[in-house]
């Protein structure tokens, strides 16, 4: 089979374009990796400040992992646990999944919840982000203090006019978060304490 010169030129031209494009994107990745990580950290920090009770530790640095969820503990000055938070995903929103950061008190009651990502209908389902009295109706509730359903389903949480699916999905996901805490309560607290002692040891070694 004869390969003519035009074909070789095509291969060389395309290969060169691809190599240069890969080099440029690779270089950009190197330069933006650190800023992207810190931007994500700052966004998470802002959300954590809103759902965790008052704390003086770095909740992100002390995070532990249980069943693939990162759990962020909040601690006071003396190291006692004041609350903990993690992100849950409601897969059954009206359009796509809804990500919710749930903050709990050590006794398992909700301290606050914040929606971190959603694609719900503006003006209807997006009440979950800007209807403050609805968000406040979660505060202080624990698994058995309230019926974890929207009123239409015979529960205690309001739905919105024209939007039932979205609040239903959020209520269900927060309830599952509370159940998750109930099931893994002991492991969670033990891991947080263990993490704290190893963390202290590392600081001690640093001082020597």
């Amino acid at each position, binding site marked *: 089979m004869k390969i003519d010169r*035009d074909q070789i*030129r*095509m291969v060389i*031209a*395309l290969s060169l*374009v*691809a190599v*240069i*494009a*890969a080099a*440029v*994107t690779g270089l*950009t*990745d190197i330069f*933006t990796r650190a*800023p*992207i990580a810190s*931007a*994500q950290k*700052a*966004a998470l920090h802002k959300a954590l400040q809103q759902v965790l009770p008052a704390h003086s530790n770095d909740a992100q640095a002390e995070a532990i992992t249980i069943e693939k969820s990162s759990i962020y503990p909040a601690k006071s000055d003396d190291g006692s646990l004041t609350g903990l938070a993690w992100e849950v995903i409601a897969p059954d929103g009206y359009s796509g999944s809804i990500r919710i950061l749930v903050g709990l008190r050590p006794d398992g009651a909700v301290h606050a919840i914040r929606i971190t*990502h959603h694609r719900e*209908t*503006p*003006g*209807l389902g997006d009440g979950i982000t800007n209807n403050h009295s609805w968000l406040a109706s979660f505060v202080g509730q624990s698994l058995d203090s309230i019926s974890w359903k929207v009123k239409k389903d015979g529960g205690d949480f309001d739905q919105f006019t024209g939007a039932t699916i979205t609040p239903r999905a959020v209520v269900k996901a927060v309830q599952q978060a509370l159940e998750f805490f109930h099931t893994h309560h002991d492991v969670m607290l033990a891991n947080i304490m263990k993490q704290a002692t190893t963390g202290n040891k590392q600081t001690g070694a640093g001082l020597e």
Partner: protein
Amino acid sequence: MNKSDIFSDGFWHNNTVFAQLLGMCPLLGVTTSAENGFWMGAATILVLIGSNLVVSMVRGVIPKNVRIPAYITIIAAFVTVVEMAMNAWMHEMYLVLGLFIPLIVVNCAILGRAEAFASKNSVSDSFVDAIAIGTGFTFALLLLGGVREILGQGELFGFAVFGASYPDVLMFILPPGAFIALGFILAAINIFNGYLKRRSEKRSNAAKPALATLAAEVSAVEISS
């Protein structure tokens, strides 16, 4: 074509949205507010400048048969760079625009400029063309985003326009509102362009008799000599 013709052509007469009806996907998708429209436009301008410049530089070097995959690779590289930069330094806007940033790759307006203009013109002309097409596209995004934000939420760039008593017309934030608002904007622009055309026709009609006498005089002079 001189530079100002290139600009007025790209910005208005050949506007990506109003004349060519290209780039509809980001146009209808992100224009729920003027701010979203503006930043989407800014990202598109950056990609357009990059791709137009590079395509114009390599024109004649890339064999004709593989030019389209080569252009797409160049465009995709610029889009990836812009996406990473936005993620790093404009994180909140990056989260809002989300999927629409990588989709700039398939905005046919950009490949269209690479193929129809940059591959045939000088680097400086291609740069002017990228600015013209890019600002024209941004203008369209800003206009549609502004109209939808004002009608849908009574705000512009997040500032209240009509006050708290304004009943938000939700439909304009939803996808159907994007089509309806775009339809009315296109109608208004057609009326405006029709007016411009009639005015220029009137002028050339008025100028014709004068030209005819001049031509007659010229031929008379030619005959006599």
